[in-house]
């Protein structure tokens, strides 16, 4: 079980959350300007990183807010959580 620190509700069991994949993949502002390869890269390619990983979570069974969790994918240790406002 992961104890996920929701920025609004505090630490809660992972049962209450939905995973949303890697964070920091902004939607291209002008998709039509992208080549097929660039669009496919946005659409399909993910880093699958070992170690520190920024990822999106939603407190589905709680406040229903999305936020960003930093997790070590090798140890499952959660290193922190931040709201979208606070992210770069």
């Amino acid at each position: 079980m992961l104890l996920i620190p929701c920025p609004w509700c505090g630490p809660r069991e992972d049962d209450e959350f939905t995973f949303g994949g890697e964070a920091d993949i902004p939607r291209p502002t002008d998709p039509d300007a992208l080549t097929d390869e660039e669009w496919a890269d946005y659409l399909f390619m993910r880093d699958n990183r070992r170690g520190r990983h920024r990822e999106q979570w939603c407190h589905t069974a709680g406040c229903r807010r999305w936020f960003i969790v930093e997790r070590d994918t090798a140890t499952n240790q959660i290193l922190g959580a931040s709201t979208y406002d606070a992210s770069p």
Partner: protein
Amino acid sequence: MSQPFRLNRGGRIDRHAPLQFTFDGRPIDAYNGDTVASGLLANGVTLVGRSFKYHRPRGIVSAGAEDPNAFVQLGHGARTLPNRLATVTPATPGLKVRHVNAWPSLEYDVMSAFGLVAPFIPAGFYYKTLMWPRRFWPLYEHFLRHAAGLGHAPDAPDPDRYDHVHAHCDVLVVGAGPAGLAAAHAAAHTGARVILADEQAEPGGILLSTCEHVDDQPGPNWADATVAKLSAAPNVTLLPNTTAFGLYESNLVLLAERLITDQPDHAGSEHGARIWRVLPKQIVLATGAHERPLLFGNNDRPGVMLAGAISTYVNRYAVAPGSRAVLFTNNDSAYRTALDLTDAGIPVAAIADVRSDPDGDLPSEARAQGIPVYPGAVVRHAHGGRRVAAAELCSLDGDPLGTVECDLLGVSGGFAPALHLHAQARGPSQWDPTLAAFAPKPGHGIHPAGAVAGELELAATLRQGTQAGATAAAAAGYSNGNEVEAPGANDSTQAPIQPYWLPPGNLARAKPQFVDLHEDVTLDDLRLSLREGYESIEHVKRYTTLGMGPDQGKLANPLATGVIAQLLGRDPASVGTPRHRPAYSPVSLGAIAGRHIGPLADPVRVTPMQEWHQVAGARFENVGQWRRAWYYPQPGESMHDAVARECLAVRRRVGILDYSTLGKIEVTGPDAGEFLDRVYTNAWKRLRPGRCRYGLMLGEDGMIFDDGVTARLDDQRYLMFTSTANAAPVLAWLEQWLQTEWPDLRVYLTSVSEHWSNIALAGPRSRDVLAAAGTDIRLARQDFPFMTFREGHVAGVPARVFRISFSGELSYEINVPADRARHVWEALVDAGRPLGITPYGTETMHVLRAEKGFIIVGQETDGSVTPNDVGLGRLISRRKDFLGKRSLSRPDSVRPDRKQLVGLLTDDPAQVLPEGGHVVDAPGPRRPLPMRGHVTSSYFSPVLGRSIALAMVAGGRATLGERLHVATLHDDRWLPVRSCNPVFYDPQGARQHV
């Protein structure tokens, strides 16, 4: 029986509380405080099971959770429990205990013939040999599975109740031996909230098994006093009969608490269980150590027992596990057992010690008592069949030292810390040469204390426990100087252990030497595995099934590490140990399920009209969690008849459908239109209030995700309908975009699915029904045209009425507050009765929409279908961006040979195609035939008087009218069809506009 092996004095049993349980129907006399195992031993029952593969006779080996043999079946009928250990099950009055894995009986096991051919069925035998002929494998497997039975499941639903408890604490102490009790005491003293869990019925652990003193009183007395103090403390929760069976991320620890009853009618000592999900701030591990067995020929004979277990039976249960003992050891602890036996009047005929010069305090004392000690000696093999009869001793060089008669052979190969929870917490371990075992590296989050930390001396264990408890409490925020002193005990000096893994040379090659008793894995199996190249201990495990039994290899794995290291000539540290996975001990499925059974396993959702449907005789179907009316058969009607009647009623007169399950999301705010523009393929900003529009929602990959009608309620308010199944996913999808990508949009989403019930009237007379039911909405065609929305009252209830149609007929979808829906439904049915109104269910709804070629997301689409594929390319706006748009121009999305929606008409109009049937150009001898597509929907259309089908066919739209064939699913026939426009009925769409 009269308990011939019960000692006259001592033990923690209550001799004033006799009880009787049965083993295979035989009455067994015992006392309160006994386990099933100690009760059996007191009555001289040594044969408790047959082994898994060879069906060799097996006896009780240990006095705890590590036993590989003592698995029994408890109780009978609905309450029976398989896979329980006699060694940890408290004896209770009337308890029915049965052996497992022997047929027809324990004494005469037909399968033991396997034992005679054991040399011929090494590891991997079944899979190598019984593969041929391959078609016989199911037969072999059936036989093998029967042969390898491990108890049986209950024959009826379990009447007991199981629960899950969620708990938080500052310090969780696992294990209530000396280290655990000391730790709990020290932690509780600081005021920290403490949970102390122990798998045995009585706390005390090793203290109950030895004659050592703590704080100048006998160990058990100190344990009792400490437990009394802890029980009285308001900040301590004591959990006996509770196994910490798994440790997970965030240090979540799962405990299985067995609830013991002595009610004989339960005929099983457990009546249910609780799973505790504990989130402690700190964990003290005091899980102890398991004594290691030793290898010699026939080392599995009943009567071969761990030396420490012998001490436990003698001291704690006042039971003599035999009448004449031989001990075999490589360390000092077995000498303590020898002294315990001598004290109890049981002669010890010999101690074979691997070490050449055992000279510690204990060996000296044993010698002084006149016990014959054989230094530099080993047991070569055990004699005897269903019970040990003698031990054949020899020197390490193989020189015979004689055969010593005995019916009890105690072994001690040293102690291996029970690292399971430590390892599950990702705590690293290191090889400790003074233990010849892996021990935890210190300083890794959780606090090991006592034997699990490699400390086998009592005084040091008590100090370590006290220290760990205080440290854990301080780490949890309780460092208020309220520290307690560690309890005192005598320090003794022990001579070092001498690792002994393999009998030297060819000692005892002829007799099987078991590394894993439960799985019948022998030394020869390990040799074979290594010879065949499976050298990693994880490969050895998989090849031989080492440690895969319900005992999880607690005794076998630590032994195997040393054996493999020696066979490979490597350092045991580099061999390692198989991964320690949960569960540590078997946990009943009932406990894992808890209350999530029956109606609570998955909630059933019903609409406010559910009772009406039931009274009307509806058959129901499950749609996700919803229970929906499927069709309403009248007496004597088949499903086909009922659906045909309902379909024709809608086409000719009027039908009424409960469509409350549709997802409904209110999208409000100044930017709501812009938001819809981004998530739907078509344009929304210019939709006028009061109007409705059909929308398609795509994933970013361009594939259809959901569809439905959205109405503009007013300037800043839209109501979006989603498909029933996608109500929650669509809301989540919209929220994600709004929060993560477009936080600047002023849009608010509210799920109103259950607030508004939805009643659909469909058919040429639906306007008349609505008028008759009473409404203040003007219904004339020009006042309330197709694809518009009006607000008003229906049957006196505030209503939102949408003139939209999923049947192609004149239709109104009437949204009313759910608590008034039943009233409105009945008012509409009453008003429609003179007009022949007919309730219809989901099956008729599907036929009607298929006649119109309307898709259902998830039936025509499967996540790989674009709008153009289903002929809805006209809904794609060229003037704006929307989610998934860019993907529609990817090369794969514009292939001309993509599967496209077509209709199929069978040559035989009565033939209904199988849904899912493969579509091919023409049958032929070549298999597999190239597949053109598949049938997605198929029905008999009553209004057309023939079958219809929708299909996804590669390049199908460009070749309408072509000859195709559809495979039947079961009888290998090919049905000739022609493709056609997927709109079968009213292709101009005139009927919905009337």
